[in-house]
């Protein structure tokens, strides 16, 4: 009962944040130097007369006051109509849908791999505190945290695509093949390098966090007691450590959606992977306002849902959190 109320509160907060986000991004774009008519016409600039421009502007309601424009835009969004993308000439929701599926595959693989390996590395480092392997893992993680994602991508590209020739340089699908005809194995093949980049970068945070948590647990009284009872090594960590550190690690991993999305924008740009990140960059560079606004909202929903899922898992699984909250 309590946790249901808690989750409901979180969801309401998320909705209020989304409404505010709509308002803020609308105001920002409204005051930007981008002329939507200009962006729409693009290369046909010479063939479109002044009257035709005005017709387009009138058709889109650009002559109405900004508040009216905001409400008609927001009303359409609530019904799931994000408008038409100017560069893809397709409904924004369809562009985002197709691209998000590709990005989700990329981010999903990286998320699972970095979660598992990061957690294991954290445990190994924590169990061997101060030894060579602990220091090596710590050094590796801190260095990764300072590494520009796109540079790591470039280095992998140089090694595996240019030197070893194992992968093609760029291109999400083979040249000259329609996207419907691309087989799953080909898609997977093109997924490997960007996913590897994101996984390598994603390990750092979770490993350092898990290591610290494990050190805290190992210093606790109940571990001292367990040691006095003769428990040691992996058995001790499994019985008393992992149970206590798994939950914060899961929450942290769900809270990392924001960085994951940012990383995928960079990785997709380096490897020309046709995902949402690449669409973000083209939308921004070519002034495709409807698509850019759509991506801002969708990516925010993505991040919020990550946090919400983390919170729900925590409040359902961990009885202490429920108690904490009722006492506050």
């Amino acid at each position, binding site marked *: 009962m309590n946790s249901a109320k808690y989750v409901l509160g979180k969801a309401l*907060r998320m909705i209020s944040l989304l409404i505010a986000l709509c308002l803020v991004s609308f105001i*920002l774009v409204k005051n930007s130097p981008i002329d939507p008519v200009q962006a729409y016409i693009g290369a046909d600039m010479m063939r479109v007369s002044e009257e035709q421009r005005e017709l387009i502007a009138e058709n889109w309601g650009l002559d109405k006051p900004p508040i009216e424009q905001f409400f008609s835009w927001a009303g359409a969004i609530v019904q799931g109509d994000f408008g038409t993308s100017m560069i893809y000439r397709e409904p924004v929701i369809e562009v985002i849908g197709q691209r998000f599926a590709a990005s989700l595959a990329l981010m999903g693989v990286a998320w699972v791999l970095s979660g598992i390996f990061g957690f294991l590395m954290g445990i190994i480092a924590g169990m061997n505190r101060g030894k060579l392997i602990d220091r090596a893992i710590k050094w590796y993680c801190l*260095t990764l945290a300072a590494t520009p994602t796109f540079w790591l991508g470039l280095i992998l590209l140089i090694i595996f695509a240019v030197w070893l020739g194992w992968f093609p340089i760029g291109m999400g699908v083979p040249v000259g093949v329609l996207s419907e005809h691309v087989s799953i194995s080909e898609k997977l093949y093109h997924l490997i390098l960007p996913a590897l980049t994101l996984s390598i970068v994603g390990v750092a945070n979770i490993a350092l966090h898990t290591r610290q948590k494990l050190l805290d647990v*190992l210093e606790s009284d109940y571990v001292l007691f367990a040691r006095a009872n003769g428990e040691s090594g992996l058995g001790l960590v499994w019985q008393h450590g992992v149970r206590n550190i798994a939950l914060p690690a899961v929450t942290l991993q769900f809270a990392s959606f924001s960085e994951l*999305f940012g990383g995928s924008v960079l990785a997709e740009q380096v490897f020309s992977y046709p995902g949402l990140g690449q669409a973000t960059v083209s939308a921004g560079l070519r002034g495709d306002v409807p698509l850019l606004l759509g991506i801002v909202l969708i990516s925010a929903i993505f*991040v*919020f849902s990550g946090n919400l899922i983390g919170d729900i898992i925590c409040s359902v699984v961990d009885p202490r959190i429920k108690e904490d909250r009722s006492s506050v």
Partner: protein
Amino acid sequence: MNVLTDPENAIGSGSLHFKLNRRQKTLIITGLCSALLIGIILAAQLMSNAGIATNFSQQNLAPSWSHPFGTDWLGRDMFTRTIKGLAISIQIGLLASSVSVVIALVLGMCAATMGEKVDAIISWLVDLFMGVPHLVALVLIAVVLGGGAKGVIIGVALTHWPSLTRVIRAEVMQVRSSQYVLVSRHLGRSRWWIASRHILPHLLPQFFVGLILIFPHAILHEASITFLGFGLSPHLPAIGVILSESMGYLAAGMWWLAFFPGLSLLIIVRAFDVIGDNLRMLLDPHRAHE
């Protein structure tokens, strides 16, 4: 395996006679990292622009003694370009993170001292800014401001305050409820007196450490957004520009165009990290004796 006797301490006390203690070591490392950063800014000022001028007799050279980072397709010396690019990144990072830290300080203080309503509003704002993926927010701000250095600086400054705001809020809350502040209040000291004499001195280290720890993020985000094409103009020798230009030449085997500039950026970011962590350790009384 015995984790209870801390091996780090054990090593430290056993070898005290012929090794520097941890505090001295920390100070030396911090000094070296700072010297590196100052050296880069000075070197960028002193280097002549001859190295980055187009020179077709020196095209596409692999790294050598006269061109340690190689040259590009226009014969420009990559070492000079990298150093100048790093100096630009450091300056932009410093400007943007200073603004961020000031925002964080003001909002954190307000959240902790101006009552529940203000606190709720500020924490809602923090959630709002943390909700949009960082890079997407940067792209949106850069696009709205029409790109360029202005777009990058404002974008980075406006998006890096939320986490530090939380830290400062928690810190102020803690100091405010401590014994000596309560005593001081009962002795009739004004709010301003307490804020300026009791709370602010505690925040100064947070302020400087926060500044240095935001720095690496600021530099990396500046480079990323420039790499994507929203940031600094292609005429500047910024690291993001260098790396995005290099993409067209990697297939031709010119690995040095990407490898060295990126590695230098990594080293700079890491140096800032080390300085920030060490300063925090030296300034924090609870951890100063570690």
